[in-house]
């Protein structure tokens, strides 16, 4: 694969399907999450009883298509990092299932975690803490292949090749330690490490968030290039809407452990339907001194995920909240006309009884 020239979409799909590991064919999404839940218990009191749960991920269903870049966006505490770890099986889900290229991920009957991880890798946000400070970086990169049976010399050679490929001169950097690198360089190493097992899917958990602006762009471009060259599928998790917009084909918006809206980049940007998505977009600083933001679209911080609001979780900050929002969880509604655009809001659901159903209410109208 190394050394191949990026090609266009149809060719790409051809090559993705040509991978010997492909099992599901063109119609099969790379990854399907079905109603995944993960709650972390909180222990308290005299007997150390469980008195509550952090509802980190609370019923997420998501589909990642082959070869696409799915952006997952949300604020801190919305569960997006837990979602990444759930996909990698670093955290086991309480309920729900995950299907990888048609195979159920399950250590007993389906694709084992170990085999899953040969096809799926992850890049963490903190470039420093995700590298072993006592290991030269080439060994960090070679670690996974060695654990999967490569000889040491093969793995090291491949690691050095990867270093060059992610833009770090192997001759200069291979034996360096993480503290000798800058943040951007470290993140390149992390990317190389993820690619070392030749995965099909890479989960990028806030992979560029800690970088300086000038470096962020470099790394993003590197990611895009690698994705094209190596025919990868990305799940790109970030809080930065600008970056998500730039890199993604599709976007999923998360709020308090749930997906509230999914759709193509353009759909989300041009026609955000969920009030939260609208608020997010409206909160981005304008970068135009002549058109400064005059009012905050919503007020307050996201609620504590330990005791999330009943019904629609956004209702406590939503200007359109009504009783039905408190009573019922909104189901995901696929918007007519755009098969990929789905929203979990009572205002999109005729049966919900919300007074603004069908009005296409805009949060900007309320706040201005």
């Amino acid at each position, binding site marked *: 694969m190394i050394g191949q020239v990026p090609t266009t979409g149809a060719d790409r799909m051809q090559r993705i399907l040509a991978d010997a590991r492909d099992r599901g064919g063109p119609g099969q999404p790379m990854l399907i999450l079905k109603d995944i839940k993960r709650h972390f218990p909180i222990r308290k009191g005299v007997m150390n009883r469980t008195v509550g749960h952090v509802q980190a991920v609370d019923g997420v269903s998501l589909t990642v298509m082959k070869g696409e870049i799915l952006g997952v966006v949300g*604020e*801190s505490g919305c569960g997006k990092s837990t979602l990444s770890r759930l996909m990698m099986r670093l955290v086991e889900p309480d309920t729900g299932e995950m299907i990888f290229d048609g195979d159920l991920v399950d250590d007993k009957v389906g694709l084992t975690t170990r085999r899953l991880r040969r096809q799926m890798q992850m890049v963490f946000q903190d470039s420093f803490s995700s590298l072993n400070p006592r290991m030269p970086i080439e060994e960090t990169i070679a670690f996974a292949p060695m654990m999967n049976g490569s000889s040491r010399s093969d793995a090291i050679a491949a690691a050095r090749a990867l270093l060059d490929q992610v833009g770090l001169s192997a001759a200069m950097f291979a034996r360096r330690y993480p503290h000798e690198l*800058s*943040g*951007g*360089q470290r993140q390149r190493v992390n990317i190389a490490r993820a690619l070392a097992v030749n995965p099909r899917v890479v989960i990028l958990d806030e992979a560029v968030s800690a970088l*300086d*602006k*000038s*470096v*962020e*762009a*470099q790394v*993003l*471009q590197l990611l895009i290039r690698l994705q094209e060259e190596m025919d990868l599928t990305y799940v790109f998790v970030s*809080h*930065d*809407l*600008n*970056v998500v*917009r*730039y*890199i*993604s*084909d599709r976007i999923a918006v998360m709020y308090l452990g749930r997906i509230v809206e999914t759709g193509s*980049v353009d759909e989300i940007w041009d026609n955000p339907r969920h009030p939260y998505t609208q*608020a*997010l977009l*409206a*909160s*981005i*600083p*304008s*970068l*135009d*001194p*002549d058109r*400064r*933001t*005059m*009012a*905050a*679209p*919503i*007020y*307050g*911080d*996201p609620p*504590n995920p330990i005791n999330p609001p009943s019904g629609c979780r956004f209702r406590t900050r939503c200007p359109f909240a009504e009783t039905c929002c408190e009573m019922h969880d909104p189901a995901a509604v696929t918007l007519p006309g755009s098969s990929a655009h789905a929203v979990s809001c009572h205002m999109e659901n005729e049966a919900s009884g919300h007074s603004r159903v069908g009005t296409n209410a805009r949060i900007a109208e309320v706040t201005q």
Partner: protein
Amino acid sequence: MKHDIIAEPGILEVSNLHVAFGRPKDRVSVVNGVDFSLAKGEVLGILGESGSGKSVMLRSLMGLFPRRTHVTGHVRLAGQDLLAMDKKTLRNIRGRDVSMIFQEPMTSFDPVFTVGRQITETIRRHDGVSEQDAQARALELFELVAIPSAKSRLTNYPHEMSGGMRQRVMIALALACRPKVLLADEPTTALDVTVQIQILLLLRELQREMGMSVVFVTHDIGVAAEVADRIGVMYAGRFAELAPTRAAILTPRHPYTRGLLAATIHGQQRGDHIETIPGAPPNLAHLPTGCAFAPRCGRSVAACTEKMPEMTVFGKTHMARCYNPEPSQI
């Protein structure tokens, strides 16, 4: 260095500020000659990447240095040189005439005292009022920064509050004694975007109401654009460019400013070309002679590697430190 851009002396005058850390033999220069003047009621946004010295510069405006810091230059607040004054006077000024907001609202509060106590102690320190009066003032401040159920919030410990609330408390604390100058060190970086905008708007509003001068340090151009009247772009401990916000963003003259703007992802879509600045910020311990940006600069000329360019004034209020500035464009 004198500059005639602002006619009357500002509330805060900084001249030839140098800050270096460490023992003489392994000294690292972090701030390498900063000059600026802050007018009354002005918001100066200072933009820079990590390691540009922006945070250290900001803290030195208050005389806050770690151990073994070597400082030269002048920081004049209403004519008084903060760096030359005795400890006692400086302490009387801190928190009263100049106050500060920090980046991480979690770590900026003492975790073992209630937030109310942390505000009242400042009020009592500077105004010498009774605890009761101080509490009443704290409550007012809480209401001013729009903290819901303010009264009960006063008895909260920092860890019991959300990030946005903590930052509001931080602002309340900074405003406790109606300072003339507010120094803000990346106050919204740790916040979510929906909270960030609230804080920015709050700051903007309070600044106008109180007529404060603000120095606002950030790495996010968007944030600077939202609040600043003027933007200074720092690179390797110096201002590369200092210009009114509009000019800085729309017609940057320094290649670094332009590169930064180009590399900032804001509204671009998949496939859009992004011009990136090659390389990484310089190592402060081994700065190149000449312009520190020259090794990464696409417009560098021979002179760039020889001598640091002086601030050049373009138009009335626009300055940049460059031998070969970007052409002015609209």
